[in-house]
């Protein structure tokens, strides 16, 4: 608790108010104190009116004082940490072959625990969506077993109550956004006053308050995704499966959503497991505890593989040409590949640091660098 309070304090002092606001809301929810949560929501609502709109602008004194008051309130709560991760879903050798078409998902095993975020990456048409839909109970798998550890003798209805699935193409909803949120929460047993509170919380938490009275047609696709996540989260699933949630989001929204998902997964009050598929490898790898790389229906690699790769791999963007790069290193020390946008340098003898140092020492101008030795990117 205190670490998280310090984290919020640090964000406030560095004028990262957006992050501070989100973490404050999370922390208030974790306390289980309704009045504190209401206070946090009220404070959060003032963020848009009182805090500086631009990054790094100083917030008004009243806003900072209110934040301090909330933090003082939070300090009174006992230290609570995350419970040990519990397995939520254990899939063993599940496979799927469509009756029409020649694609088949080869046997894949994976596990999702509470508080963890799993990423499924791969090129289009290689089985990511099929895998996720099978895990969510949307699609029947041919072989293998899926075990939902939190459920005793689950039937399909309970499984779908336990696992929330957000498809890439979000199904259209009708009416006002806020009505839909109230409805979803009420359906999950969150009734009355608590329903109002949780919807207000979710609107603030996902920055949707100003869109609460809008309809589907009035929202951009990015906000529709956010809304869908808010709606699903109000149903309190144990496992959240998202298919390409970043597809419709801008770069900032992607970062915000991914960090939010990570925070929400690690919630003290309601920890859950998250599994998402995406093409944004680096963003996903940054927040995921484990990433599965799927190619032609096979799971080729997971980032949990402990064995160190035989070769190191970096990708760079530079104004220098291929010959200049190859002259930096000796014959056979490194292979250079160019995909028209950036170079991929592969070496079994040198580490990424050595490669970068050598390039800089030879005066090669580098505008972008990433170590992809342990990234699934190397398989693309």
């Amino acid at each position: 608790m205190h670490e998280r309070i310090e984290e919020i304090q640090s964000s406030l002092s560095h004028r990262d108010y957006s992050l501070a606001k989100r973490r404050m809301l999370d922390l208030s929810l974790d306390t289980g104190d309704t009045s504190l949560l209401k206070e946090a929501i009220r404070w959060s609502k003032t963020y848009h009116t009182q805090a500086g709109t631009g990054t790094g602008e100083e917030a008004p004194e009243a806003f900072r004082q209110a934040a301090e008051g909330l933090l003082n309130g939070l300090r009174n709560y006992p230290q609570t940490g995350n419970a040990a991760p519990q397995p939520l879903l254990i899939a063993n050798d599940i496979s799927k072959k469509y009756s029409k078409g020649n694609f088949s998902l080869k046997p894949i095993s994976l596990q999702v625990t509470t508080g963890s975020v799993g990423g499924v990456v791969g090129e289009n048409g290689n089985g990511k969506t099929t895998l996720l839909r099978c895990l969510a109970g949307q699609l029947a798998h041919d072989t293998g077993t899926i075990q939902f550890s939190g459920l005793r003798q689950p039937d399909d209805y309970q499984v779908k109550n336990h696992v929330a699935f957000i498809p890439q193409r979000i199904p259209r909803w009708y009416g006002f956004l806020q009505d839909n949120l109230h409805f979803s929460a009420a359906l999950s047993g969150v009734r009355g006053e608590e329903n109002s509170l949780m919807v207000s919380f979710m609107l603030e938490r996902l920055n949707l308050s100003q869109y609460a009275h809008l309809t589907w047609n009035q929202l951009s696709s990015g906000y529709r995704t956010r809304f869908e996540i808010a709606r699903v989260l109000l149903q309190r699933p144990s496992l959240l499966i998202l298919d390409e949630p970043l597809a419709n989001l801008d770069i900032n929204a992607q970062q915000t959503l991914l960090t939010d998902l990570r925070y929400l997964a690690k919630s003290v009050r309601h920890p859950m497991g998250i599994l998402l598929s995406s093409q944004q490898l680096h963003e996903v790898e940054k927040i995921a505890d484990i990433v599965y790389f799927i190619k032609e229906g096979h799971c080729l690699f997971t980032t949990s593989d402990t064995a160190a790769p035989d070769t190191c791999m970096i990708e760079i963007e530079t104004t220098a040409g291929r010959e200049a790069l190859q002259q930096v290193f000796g014959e056979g020390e490194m292979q250079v590949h160019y995909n028209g946008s950036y170079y991929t340098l592969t070496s079994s003898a040198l580490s990424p640091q050595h490669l970068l140092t050598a390039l800089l020492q030879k005066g090669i101008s580098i505008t972008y660098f990433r170590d992809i030795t342990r990234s699934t990117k190397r398989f693309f």
Partner: protein
Amino acid sequence: MSSKRPLVPRFLRRFDHYLLLNKPDVWSARTHLVIYFGGLFIAALALVSFVMPDDPRSSSPAPYWIGYGVVISILALTVWLIYLLRFNVFKRYGHITPLSRLTTFILYFIAVGIIALIPMVMPYVESVRANKAYSDLEIINDVNSINTKICQLEYDSLPHKLRTDTILVVNQLPQHRSLPDEDEEEVEYDAGATYKARPRYRLVDTASLPGRITGADSSIRLNDSMYVLYASYDYTFVSSYQTSSFYMEGHRVLPEVYSNYDLYKKVIRDFDHPNRRAVRNELYKLLDKYNLEATTPGWYEYDEQDLNGAEQISQKYNLYTINRNIDNVSSRKLRWRDENGAFIIRLWYYITLGITLLVFVYRHSTRKTFFLSLLTAVILSILTSLFAAYFNQRESSMYVWLMAYIALFFGISLFAFRNKVRSGVAGIGINLFVLLVASLPLCMVSYYYSRLEEKNRNLINPPPIDYAWKYQLLWYAELAGSLLLLILLATYIQRVYRKWYALPEE
């Protein structure tokens, strides 16, 4: 949410919000909005119908109003469906109690029922207005008075004796007519022929004797096999067959409209010369009461030369118009009584039930399965009809077909519990079972009676069928069908839909 609905009053907005937060299944049915707006509309329509100038003596404009009401109902149903289809509690895998589906069905039924009431408002108000304007007793007394007074005034032109008919009762009628009858053959005129008295009587068999005696106004038994039957001439100038339904008003048993024989006894038989002027004045006063010539132009064309006595009297007092107007009043008054009322209520009930079932099934199945179910129903109906026509099937076999289909669809629906994937066939089975199951008891009773009637047709002396009990039983079957549906909704149907929809796709 409600800020964008200016037509919704504050209290309803608050109630709506309360339901949204606490009873999502009730909220999503939107029945509370239908009750409020439907109730308001029905009240307004009733008020308009009450204040609208309308004379009960005129022919009823109800058909136009019903047409208007049907259009409004279709619009209202469309609006309700647009709101209803926005939120579905059954496809979100939320916390739903087993009774939720039953509750929702009842709420749908109420909403559809209110909407289906709209076309009936004006005819009902019209009936109330007619009953307020003319009591049953008043009409009976007026009809009797008019007939009595016309008989008094037109005594000289009316027959003064009863018609007689002599009958000879025999055990078996001869195959050919040996005795004269009314339609005897014409013979050429023979100027030299002399009159020969011939016995004039009609042969009847013993079986038809009781009916003839009870049908006659009076009878005399001449000997063991010969009777004289008396029947009065037509003295009822004003009559409405509908007035025969006026037998009770509140708890009071009403007098009957005078028959020809009543008028004969009261006026013709012991004729007492009345004060013609006073009687005529009273008669015209009564006729004026029912006369509405201006709004009901006559359509009866006649040539005065061809008129018989009764028709001349009718023309003299404008009785065609009076009769029609009394009929108009009576039909308005009787629209909601006894069989008429039962028929309208049944019509309303089955329309409501049908729409409710369709909406309920649509809410619980996928769009594709729903429309495939309807298509299956249409195709099966066509095939069954063709089969029945080709093999000359009897009525009872149609009930067997229907019961067999219900059993078949039930059997198919059970596969939802065994299947590993959401099968379209199982979905169609469930949908059609839900749509048909309420008719099962009715089919069983109808099958029993149609079999009985078919058997009786082959018997020389069939046992009598108690039709009163049959109709009672059919009414119980309708009730049992509804109860069966409600029980199944709370038990089997809710379980099978829950299981089927949650299954993964292939």
